[in-house]
């Protein structure tokens, strides 16, 4: 029980901090956040924020320019989706089939947690019978036969 309580505390702490630290407010930080969610068109699998390619550099500047012009983060992302397709988003937007990868992690964690609990919870002694005292199919058949024999 104590362990469960401790796990719960840590789990809550983790879930609380999972969304990350407060959303960025300065243009520079917002631009970095948008760039890290966009896929660099000319690289293997890097974000616009990470890529050392020249085009990614121009895209970072374009993001900052648009933010300075007063566009929202969402509008900037929408511009790139318009030009490059949804392919450009490193986290699929949440609708339709895309809900699968977005909801899956939490669902998997929940199922995992529940199964763990079901397996380790302390059982009331009355419900636990030693497996060795239970009859197997073969035992039962044999028992039936023997009892049959006695009756005869």
């Amino acid at each position, binding site marked *: 029980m104590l362990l469960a309580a401790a796990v719960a505390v840590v789990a809550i702490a983790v879930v609380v901090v999972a969304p990350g630290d407060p959303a960025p407010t300065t243009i520079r930080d917002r631009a970095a956040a948008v760039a890290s969610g966009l896929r660099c*068109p000319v690289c293997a699998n890097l974000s616009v924020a990470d890529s050392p390619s020249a*085009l990614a550099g*121009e895209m970072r500047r*374009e993001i900052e320019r648009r933010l300075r012009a007063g566009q929202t983060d969402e509008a900037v992302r929408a511009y*790139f989706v318009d*030009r*490059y397709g949804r*392919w450009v988003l490193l986290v699929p937007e949440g609708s339709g089939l895309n809900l699968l990868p977005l909801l899956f992690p939490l669902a998997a964690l929940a199922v995992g947690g529940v199964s763990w609990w079901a397996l380790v919870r302390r059982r009331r002694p009355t419900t636990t019978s030693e497996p060795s005292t239970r009859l197997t*199919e073969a035992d*039962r058949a044999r028992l039936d036969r023997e009892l049959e024999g006695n009756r005869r």
Partner: protein
Amino acid sequence: MSDELGEERGTAGAPNPYSRRAVALAVVLVPVLAFTLLLASGLGRDPSERPDPVAATPAPAFSLPKLGGGERITSASMRGQVVVVNFWASWCIPCRQEHPALLRAWERYRERGVVFVGVNFEDTEEAALAYAEEQGGDWPLVTDPGSRTAIDFGVFGVPETFVVAPDGTIVAKEIGAVSYEWLITEIDSALRRGGSA
């Protein structure tokens, strides 16, 4: 997992062990089959293929300075003509491969209401001019400061070529070196579209 840690299972109403086995096998085999089918769907996949969201959308407007100085080239001035927009760079090897095809197509269509524009991509002016000198062709070449036009077109790399119909719609796009056949097919169909419109 739950079974194995010993769920209570009354032996009394237990079904025949063979059908239980069949159920267990099905529980294993059905997901395996589904997973295999999913993976099989990826077999014909070309991992380097890129999406094409700009097809059939209006071509972005641009106004770009000519390479080596001079007046600007604007998209507005080309309305009503078929425009072939070719993104290229001096450091790009496939660009050299496709250049003869561009030259041939340019010679064939320059008098027929078709404009070519070569947009230089992530390059230095000097190197670009030297390349143009070496490769030949006299269609307008422009620079793209900050790659803004390239981003507007959704360019994934060079070379990349767009065919814009007279009404300003992107009707065809090719990533990588273009062939002469591709150019004449797409330009002809853009011309027909312009004629009927």
